[in-house]
């Protein structure tokens, strides 16, 4: 009786004898690819943010430095409207530079 039960238990709990489940394998592969794509996308976004920050610093620091020069400070005080227009132009230029984004070349969806 005990031996019969042991045989029953072992056969009942053993992994099934079947071929690999290709559908499951494909599901896992799809998740792996998706994860890689998302990681690449995240890296790309972070790199873009770093680039934009660098551009901001590159543009803002010289402008600040220039505005401290005596002739410029005098001009800003004498012609505030013109100074404001210049400031707006500079701001628009900055916005244009920051909004130009390089293409993301991960190609996950094109490949799959």
């Amino acid at each position: 009786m005990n031996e019969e039960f042991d045989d029953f238990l072992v056969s009942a709990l053993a992994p099934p004898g079947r071929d690999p489940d290709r559908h499951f394998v494909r599901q896992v592969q799809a998740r792996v690819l998706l994860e890689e794509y998302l990681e690449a996308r995240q890296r790309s976004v972070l790199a873009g943010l770093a680039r934009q920050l660098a551009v901001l610093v590159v543009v803002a620091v010289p402008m600040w430095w220039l505005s401290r020069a005596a002739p410029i400070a005098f001009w800003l005080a004498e012609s505030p409207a013109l100074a404001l227009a210049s400031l707006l132009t500079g701001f628009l230029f900055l916005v244009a530079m920051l909004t130009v984004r390089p293409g993301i070349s991960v190609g996950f969806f094109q490949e799959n």
Partner: protein
Amino acid sequence: MAPGNDEDLALSRRAAAGDHGAFALLVEKHERPLRAFLSRTFGVQHADDIAQDAFLKAWRGAGQYDGRARYSTWLTRIAWRCRIDAVRREKAPEADDFGSTNVAASTAEVADMLGRLTERERASLVLCEGHGWTHAEAAELLNIPLGTLKSTVARAKARCRAMWQGAA
């Protein structure tokens, strides 16, 4: 290194280097026992989700597999932690369908027997009786002393035997 691990170690190293084909071979080789264990222990409805999470983590950590344990042992440990994380995160309800993966055994009978055991008893019994794990391997997975594991297996087996004899 445990015998027979060379192939899995080589595949895992290739996977760590980004080889999707090598990882697919590992999934093909190990999905059957892993999913059988998970469906027996945690229920059919949770098994595939946990198995997918485990394989994803195995892909991420492919470089960490050093071949000292069997790949299936390493993978099952990952799956076990995935289940613990899922329970903590979602307070997942107790599974109630431990459907048979073996057509030779009576599906309802086995599912009923397993359903009356605790999760730890099910895991111990399935690994040690059905999957050929050593008591030491199962004790390490479940993070319990070897003696506790042995008594857990014996208790689970005795309960199943009583149910089986009662049903016969």
